[in-house]
């Protein structure tokens, strides 16, 4: 029932926000997002909530949603970031802005909970539309170009995935199993190897574009540059995880032999992305773009965790998705606060802001340290498990990943130094309002909780992961 709540409340709230006058929209959105979060809290108390309704019986499509160990915490991530993004948004952003934001919350909830491939695909595409309009309507002419690029690149990937989705069901039916889109059933079937390889890449490309993973990240720089900070936080914090989650949820159970076959290539490409993102981040002069490219590098880290095909690596990725989502979402929002105060994002134009805004500087440092993987904060636990997995599978890649952690510390601290430390060159800025602290404190608290108690997630995720891998075990398995 809480799953229905999680989807129905944002949807109804979105409609209410659209119908309300502009000045009431933010209030409605705030109430809606908090109610959604409360619904999510209810979900934590039941084990494996699910709904399973017939949707299109003729095609064997069921509206099947499950909150298991894989999806539960991503659902939480999306609800938390939705609340934070709504609170961090402009008061006068207008009702359509909040309409699209809540619609985004609705579609991410559906996406993360879906275990029927058709349902998964529906929400996968639906969430492109709110982001498209958020990019088009609330930024300049360049935002329109970014929106176009976002939509077209993502849809190119997902259209091929659509053929893949239908092909899986059709092959299942032609094998005599009847037409079904249930992932757990599709994972049992046998396919001829060339067909499976084609489908494997159809899915992989779609997920890699959404994440984004190098070299399919073409939409990323412009989208991150042009979007409003709360929207950036949701894209990087939640939507990018959808790509990685798709690999875990859909591809691991179905395409294990193909993962084994192409593992070396996948690891190499992901490692190139890891290095590329890190070094691009070092070269940026815009503090938002440093974070964006840093995030690209971290997405490659998550992909490496999966491609290691070890339990430690995959578990690390599951955990790191949530941790990174909270951290990078918080970081983008703090950067947004900073940008609103200084009017610029160029690091060269800022210095010594910690004098006038010590509290802002403290939160900034907190999220920077979390992102670079300081032990005690959750980023570290995730990266540690991923590297452990890589170590079991291929040592070389573990060494490279460890090296990139150092680079990550370098580029993140470089931002902090440039912006906050040194002699103050410009006039001071206002520090945080108490209203802003109100949403920063719970977010930071949640991050610390995850940092000191990663088992809160991992102990829940392990059974589901075992389930997913056991499905895969028949086809080569996981070490």
């Amino acid at each position, binding site marked *: 029932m809480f799953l229905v709540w999680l989807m129905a409340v944002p949807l109804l709230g979105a409609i209410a926000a659209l119908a309300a006058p502009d000045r009431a929209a933010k209030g409605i959105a705030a109430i809606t997002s908090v109610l959604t979060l409360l619904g999510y809290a209810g979900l934590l108390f039941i084990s494996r909530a699910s709904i399973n309704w017939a949707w*299109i019986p003729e095609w064997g499509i069921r509206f099947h949603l499950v909150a298991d160990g894989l999806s539960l915490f991503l659902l939480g991530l999306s609800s938390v970031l939705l609340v934070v993004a709504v609170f961090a948004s402009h008061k006068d952003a207008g009702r*359509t802005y909040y309409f699209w934001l809540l619609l985004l919350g609705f579609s991410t909830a559906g996406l993360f909970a879906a275990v029927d491939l058709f349902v998964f695909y529906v929400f996968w595409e639906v969430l492109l539309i709110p982001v498209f*309009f958020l990019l088009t309507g609330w930024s300049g002419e360049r935002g329109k170009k970014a929106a*176009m690029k976002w939509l*077209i690149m993502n849809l190119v990937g997902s259209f091929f995935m*659509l*053929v893949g989705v239908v092909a899986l069901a*059709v092959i299942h039916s032609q094998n005599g199993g009847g037409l079904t889109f249930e992932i757990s059933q599709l994972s049992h079937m046998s396919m001829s190897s060339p067909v499976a390889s084609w489908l494997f890449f159809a899915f992989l490309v779609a997920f890699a574009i959404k994440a984004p993973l190098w070299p399919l990240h073409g939409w990323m720089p412009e989208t991150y540059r042009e979007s409003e900070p709360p929207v950036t936080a949701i894209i990087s914090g939640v939507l990018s995880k959808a790509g990685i989650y798709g690999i875990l949820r859909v591809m691991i159970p179905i395409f294990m032999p193909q993962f084994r076959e192409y593992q070396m290539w996948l690891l190499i490409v992901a490692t190139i992305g890891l290095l590329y993102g890190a070094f691009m981040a070092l070269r940026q002069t815009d503090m938002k773009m440093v974070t964006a490219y840093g995030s690209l590098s971290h997405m490659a880290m998550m992909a490496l965790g999966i491609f290691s095909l070890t339990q430690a690596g995959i578990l690390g990725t599951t955990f790191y998705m949530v941790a990174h989502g909270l951290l990078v979402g918080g970081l983008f929002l703090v950067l947004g606060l900073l940008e609103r105060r200084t009017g610029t994002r160029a690091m060269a134009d800022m210095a010594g802001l910690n004098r006038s805004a010590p509290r802002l500087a403290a939160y900034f440092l907190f999220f920077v340290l979390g992102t670079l993987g300081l032990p005690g904060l959750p980023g570290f636990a995730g990266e540690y498990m991923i590297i452990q997995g890589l170590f079991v599978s291929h040592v070389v890649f573990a060494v490279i990943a460890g090296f990139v952690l150092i680079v990550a510390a370098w580029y993140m601290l470089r931002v902090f130094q440039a912006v906050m430390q040194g002699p103050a060159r410009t006039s001071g800025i206002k520090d945080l309002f108490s209203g802003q602290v109100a949403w920063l404190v719970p977010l930071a608290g949640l991050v610390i909780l995850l940092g000191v108690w990663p088992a809160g997630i991992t102990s829940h995720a392990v059974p589901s992961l075992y389930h997913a891998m056991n499905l895969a075990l028949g086809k080569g398995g996981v070490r």
Partner: protein
Amino acid sequence: MSYALWPEYSVVLGVLVTMFSVMVFKGRSIQAYWVALATIVASGIISIADWGLKGIPVSLYGHGVTVDAFSLVINGLVLLAAFGALLIGWNDRRYGPDFPVLVLLAMLGMMALGMANNFIVLFIGIELLSLPLYILAASQGPGPSGEAGLKYLLLGAFSSGILLFGLALLYGASGTMVFTQLDPSHMILPLAAGGLALTVVGLTFKLGIVPFHMWIPDVYEGSPTPVTSYMAFGTKVGAAAILMRFLFFGFALDAGWWGPALGYLAVLTMVVGNLLALAQKDLKRLLAYSGIANAGYLLVGIAAHNIQGARALLFYLLPYGLAVLAAFAVIQVVAGERESLTVSDLRGLFRRSPWLAAFLAVSLLSMAGIPLTGGFVGKFYLIQAALFSNQPGLAIGLVVGAMVGLAAYVRPLQRAFSAADEATETPLHWPWAGSIVLVVAVIGTIGLGVYPAPIVHIVNHSAAFYWLH
């Protein structure tokens, strides 16, 4: 006594009464519109009543027409198209009392195509559909409309000639005119092959398949907006229905003759149509090329030559038609007195009328195939059909076409949702009749996307061409 043909008889009666009402009432005679609307509603009710009737399916007039679930579904689609066209043109003073009469006549032709079972009915249906549309296209007199009408007439007559020649050859080769009695294994081969090819060319011309699509953009652009919506929806329903009847009933076992050829044409049409749509500045031309591309999607269902294909095609006609109706209703409102509307004219539409912009968005996103709209479910079904027939090329062609098309549809949307340049934010006048079409089409589109199960069920029952396996 059979009630099977009463939907058609009621339309004949309605045409007569409409003409009579024009004679009785002077002036623009809005009464003619009311009579036509009543006719459409009555015919629809009878079609629905026929659905559960015992005597159906039934073959009448010496196997000339077959009334079955398929023809009743086609009836419903055609009535929807006529309903939409009539209401879009309702509040426009430029359309006289001849408009509803001609709409009803063309509708009768489309209905005949849905149940045709021999060559004569096929040809009568095609001509009955085309002749009123020639007049309607030219109804605005000299200028773009006259040009469109003349072009349509000349090229349409040409294609009718090809069609007739093809039918004559087939009759010569087989000795029968009834689809279900055609037996290709006992035909004189060269005659039969030539006849089949010419007939299919004549029919795909009406459907607007590349390379027989040249007339569509000019005709759509020049014709009055309600007429264009009628051509884009109704004509395609009729042409698709008769192609299915002709090929699935007459040549089902000889798919090797026409399947691959139609497959290549479908891929070509989807890709070319969407590519050319990308380059258009005029909104009606853009929709014309989108109509061509959509004809390609429809052809996928035929080229797949399996039962899923027939069902998918029949299903796809509905979301396609609803999207077309919504888009043209928006054009009619925004263009007002003008006959043409460029993509950049849409700029600032969201500020002038948020609802209209939202409706346009739903319509275009449905054409682009975004989930939770009917267009997506239709494309999904077509891809299923292509893959079930083991023709992945068709499915790939479909998604490649959809990708290109997406860029074409997003451009007007972005214009509509961006701020206007100058302060021409005149509020738009909403005619009530057009609003009904808009609301019905948009609710239908979203409804089909969110819960398509009932329509899927009806379609599966209706296109029960079990011999296609």
